[in-house]
């Protein structure tokens, strides 16, 4: 079970219609690959975030499948076009079944 998992997101609060805005996201997570062994030689079980999804007013912006080779605290930066005011919803899916969510409002005008 991953501890201290905290999602953080940076989205501009204002944009003009049709503007492409830069979104930065980061989630603190150990991203244990499942390949490593502990001091006794036992395999440390895999524990990663395996999927990351962003939606805007319900419409998918990106949907990422993540693999064990991704390092700790995965960071994503991407651009999205905002046609209207609305809400970005971010969801991270953990191997242990947990889902971490964050949302940000953007006002167009």
């Amino acid at each position, binding site marked *: 079970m991953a501890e*201290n998992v*905290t999602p*953080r997101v*940076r989205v501009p609060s204002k944009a003009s219609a049709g503007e492409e805005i830069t979104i*930065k996201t*980061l989630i*603190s997570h150990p991203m244990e690959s499942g390949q490593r062994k502990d001091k006794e030689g036992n395999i440390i079980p895999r524990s990663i975030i395996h999927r990351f999804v962003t939606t805007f007013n319900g419409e998918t912006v990106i949907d990422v499948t993540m693999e064990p080779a991704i*390092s*700790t*605290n995965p*960071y994503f930066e991407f651009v999205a076009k905002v046609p209207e005011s609305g809400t970005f919803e971010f969801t991270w899916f953990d191997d242990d079944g947990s889902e971490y969510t964050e949302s940000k409002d953007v006002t167009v005008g």
Partner: protein
Amino acid sequence: MMKMTLTSSGLILAALGGAAFAQEEPELVINGEIPITTRAEAPASVEGALPEVISGWEFRSPETQSLEEDDFENPGMIFVDDARAQFDTAMGPDDQACSSCHDTPEDLAGARAVYPKWDEEHGEVQTLEMQVNECLTERMSTDAWEYTSNDMTNMMALLASVSRGMPVNVAIDGPAQSTWEQGKDIYYTRYGQLELACANCHEDNYGNMLRADHLSQGQINGFPAYRLKNAQLNSVHDRFKGCIRDTRAETFEPGSPEFIALELYVASRGNGLSVEGPSVRN
């Protein structure tokens, strides 16, 4: 977890430095509001040894440098957030938290800049780690943290972060002087099979390449440092240990009197640079 594996062939020093420096000078401003002094006039402690003192930030690539300009992109700030939560967490039998006495971490702004410093009550030079452990054991009646444990290093990152931009200003005179002299001795003593002193790399050859490494002055104003190579915060004493190990020597232990003296001495070599931790290095 991969440990620091600074290349050990300390004797092969390619002379590439110098020219790479002279061009335009990058400036570090964190979050667009905290200007950081990354070059300063040489303080009295390095009179004659260095023309100026330079933060390790100046020796890194532009990509690494830029990570430090924005807290969102500085991976070290994740650990600062952890420590912020710890700061408010009640510990020990009396349910005391750091915040019970100190209110907010910002109340401790400036502390990082003057440690290690002489502690009258204990009659010794104390590092900031020792001060935190003193709080834990003497004021909160709980267990001390291990010197380079995650809890401790995260707390160091928090205390450094609230002092960012303030000039390092450790006192080296008065009762601290003999410890400072001891640190200076260690700095100039050759250790290990490779017979290297701190000064051989960080004073005689900073700016040159040690294989793929761009040698810095070994300043500690940016500690704890988030290192991209091991994806975690690294404490000052762990870095000292790594360096001495790379000379193929038996190292001193983190928290040992030798490293405390060395920390005081090395910190004093950076007097005038800004507190910069948690910094990002490779």
